[in-house]
């Protein structure tokens, strides 16, 4: 699952940062790890209706997957296209270029000769649009009234298949992206999460850094964008989702017609497999100071499972477990938060194709930093016990997730983003059967998950404090000591 947003220190979720292009408007060498699960090439189209989730699915002849979610409550349509791209595909010399590419999507293409022309067309069609770049997905989405469906479908096709990458526009957009970095780096939470990421993904930090490097973005060339386009912007590495006031069959017919000339490409993950993030060799502690931090903020991070066949069971166990712990009435919340030790505590695994992080995040009033940290570590000790959660807890968690899924479908324009997220890091079938699989998790599965990824495994412990907290004695030595890692007791 996606990590639950942290209301108190929401910026901490920058650890799982997704970078928007418009915000208010953002590859090559590799080691060897299991490539993403890919749909088998198919000459004929396959169509299937997914009744429980009301998802209609289709695969075009060129390999482009299509999912339609019909909802006729309001006369709106959302068209979203996503690619398995982003930080996971970026070696250091491409760090941030997927994000820069995403910005260039909203510019000149074969049909619209400039960004001004592109924007004018979007405006004329009443389109609300944006794009985001994450670690494993880049997505672009348009929402407009259903009367503009056909034009918007063409507009998306033109943007996705024929970007011009005008050098002048690229030059200007590099500066815009650098401006986006300036904003991000003005946040203490962004700097904190980046610091933790550099330790957690120590060998390949660029593969988890969606925003990327100033140096690389500042010198990116049109040729680099073309490399990304040719490698990852191929139909057989993409998913088109259309939600809202539409008819599935009509969408499938349009896709077959509009994208008929878009040629299938080589599977990018065959030639350029995902790199392998080596396990942490030792536990590390990092304490960062920033005068603008509202509370003592802490986080423990481990390497979690990847979305691959041999770890699927662990992914369901992780999510079932995290859902149990999120409930206000859970012993986890009772002992950590209701006890008054911590202001907030959460545990979760981030759904990722290539090693999702497991995070135990917490915050405390400065005078309770010690009590909270010690309570967290004590709870962590309990969490590894085989009977920490019951079967009933897990069934209830699946019930909660089932209701969450109902809520997700209420907003078709946002539901499209969820579908592409799950597709990129897992696949649609994983999403379809997700609640059922979580509902089948047994306490032993949770214990195995903890044993495999957390118990006695090295981790990164981060703490974010103010200079005043440091002056009051909250030092790295103290934090180590509270966590039972030696230091000044």
């Amino acid at each position, binding site marked *: 699952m996606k990590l639950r947003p942290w209301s108190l220190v929401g910026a901490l979720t920058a650890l799982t940062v997704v970078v928007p292009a418009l915000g208010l408007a953002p590859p090559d060498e590799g080691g060897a790890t299991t490539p993403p699960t890919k749909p088998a090439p198919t000459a004929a189209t396959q169509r299937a209706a997914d009744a429980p989730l009301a998802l209609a699915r289709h695969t075009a002849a060129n390999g482009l997957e299509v999912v339609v979610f019909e909802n006729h409550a309001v006369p709106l349509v959302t068209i979203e296209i996503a690619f398995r791209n982003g930080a996971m595909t970026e070696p250091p010399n491409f760090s941030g270029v997927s994000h820069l590419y995403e910005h260039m999507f909203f510019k000149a293409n074969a049909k619209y000769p400039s960004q001004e022309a592109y924007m004018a067309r979007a405006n*004329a069609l009443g389109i609300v649009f944006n794009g985001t770049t994450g670690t494993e997905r880049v997505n672009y989405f348009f929402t407009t009234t259903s009367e503009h469906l056909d034009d918007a479908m063409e507009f998306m096709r033109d943007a996705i298949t024929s970007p011009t990458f005008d050098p002048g526009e690229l030059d200007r957009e590099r500066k815009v992206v650098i401006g986006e970095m300036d904003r991000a780096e003005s946040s203490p939470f962004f700097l904190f999460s980046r610091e933790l990421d550099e330790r957690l993904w120590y060998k390949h930090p660029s593969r988890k850094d969606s925003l990327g490097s100033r140096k690389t973005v500042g010198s990116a060339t049109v040729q680099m964008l073309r490399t990304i386009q040719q490698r990852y912007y191929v139909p057989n590495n993409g998913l088109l989702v259309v939600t809202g006031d539409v008819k599935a069959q009509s969408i499938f017919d349009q896709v077959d017609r509009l994208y008929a000339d878009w040629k299938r490409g080589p599977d990018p993950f065959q030639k350029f497999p995902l790199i392998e993030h080596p396990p942490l060799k030792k536990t590390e502690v990092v304490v960062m100071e920033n005068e603008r931090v509202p*509370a003592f903020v802490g986080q423990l991070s481990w390497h979690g499972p990847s979305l691959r066949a041999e770890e699927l069971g662990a992914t369901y166990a992780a999510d079932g477990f995290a859902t149990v712990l999120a409930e206000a009435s859970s012993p986890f919340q009772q002992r950590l938060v209701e006890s008054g030790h911590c202001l907030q505590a959460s545990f979760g695994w981030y759904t990722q194709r290539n090693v999702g992080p497991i995070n135990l995040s917490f915050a405390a009033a400065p005078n309770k930093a010690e009590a909270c940290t010690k309570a967290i570590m004590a709870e962590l000790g309990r969490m590894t016990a085989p009977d920490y959660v019951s079967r009933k807890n897990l069934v209830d968690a699946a019930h909660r997730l089932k209701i969450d899924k109902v809520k997700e479908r209420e907003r078709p324009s946002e539901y499209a983003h969820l579908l592409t997220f799950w597709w990129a890091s897992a696949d649609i079938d994983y999403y379809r059967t997700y609640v059922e699989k979580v509902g089948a998790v047994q306490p032993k599965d949770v214990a195995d998950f903890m044993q495999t990824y957390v118990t006695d495994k090295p981790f990164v412990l981060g703490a974010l404090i103010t200079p005043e907290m440091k002056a009051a004695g909250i030092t790295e030595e103290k934090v180590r000591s509270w966590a039972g890692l030696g230091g000044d007791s």
Partner: protein
Amino acid sequence: MPEAPPDPEPVVDGDLTVGSINGIDVMVKQVEAELGTMQLYVRGGARFRTAENAGLDSLSVRAAVTGGTQKLDKDDFDKELFELGTEVGATALNAYSMFYAKALRKNMARSFELLADVFLRPALPAKELELQRARLLTQIKSLTSSPDGQLAEQSRRLFYAGHPYEHAASGTELTVSRFTREDLVEHMASLQNTSRLAIVVVGPVDYATVAGWVKTHFGAVPRGSYEPSALPVVSHETPQLRTTTLQIPTNFVESSFSTPGWQDDDFAASILALRLLRNRLFDEVRTRRSLSYAPTARHVWTSEVTRGALYVSAIKVNETMKVMVDEVEKLKTELVGEVELRGAKSVFITSTLMSNESTDGQASFIAMCALVGGDHRLRHELPERIKAVTSEQVRAFARKYMTNMQTIVVGSAEVDPSVFPSK
């Protein structure tokens, strides 16, 4: 004690049924959906806020929805919500406080009962008060953790100085630190007059059913005599510029100005003008000049006292603001072309529909039209008024309102006051 007048017959307005039960305005929109949203509004909001009590409404509603009820203690309350799959929450805003429940169709009746109990019979245990107090204090501190937060907070204080909106709903560290449980109990009791209440339900349920719930759970609540008073209009005679030095990689700027209220003839023009300006700032500042990632024109039009603003983060503050001010001047002096105007109207319609996709979005929009705008029919009429806006009306709005901007800069730039908007 005189007998209460009988409830009037409900009125049907398209898909919305509007009635009054024991003095509570009840609005029900029946839709086919798996989930239903039930919202309880308490009028007043910032009207009753002072430098001494700011934050009381926030802390009260938080502790009320998280602390259990007099019938179910916190633990049992949380467990039942979990089993029902119901979400209950509350928020304190400038126009009102709002308690809500979102529930599966089959659990709406019980969820409404729990919602009523949260409002009428909150347990407010001392332990929960302390937890929520600690969280609210951290939230207040977090306002200054990001430059955007600092900008927003300082901009609000500067623009609304002397106005009830000057006091943040979240309060201050000083006020929130000293509220007692008795303060919260008293405050919650003061809200329990039906003349202050409105209930909006959107979901798979009809008016008669909701009316039955309201009679059962709110039938004995006293009516009280709440009469909403008009809030003062915000007006600035001169421009102001204030800078907060912060060592960060860029600078954050916001220049605020008054905009018309819901009852004003140029309200629709203001919405459209700010959308047009947003597009133009994006084109001129970001696309053509690469001066910023985030130039925009903001418009807070969903509250009783509205506000517009130029917003940007940029290293070259003076150069960037000059471009933005030039765009404002163009809006004041040139007529917007028909194509551009039509496009902005289309995007407004799309945005409005997007905010109405969910049952809670629909309920909030109905409530905003009824409670802030003064008439639930605005949910139909506002889009029509937007469609009718002319280029001349946009220019007239810009000339009348986009003056005497109140500017905050957060960052380390050397700011030249002459480039900032003046009369």
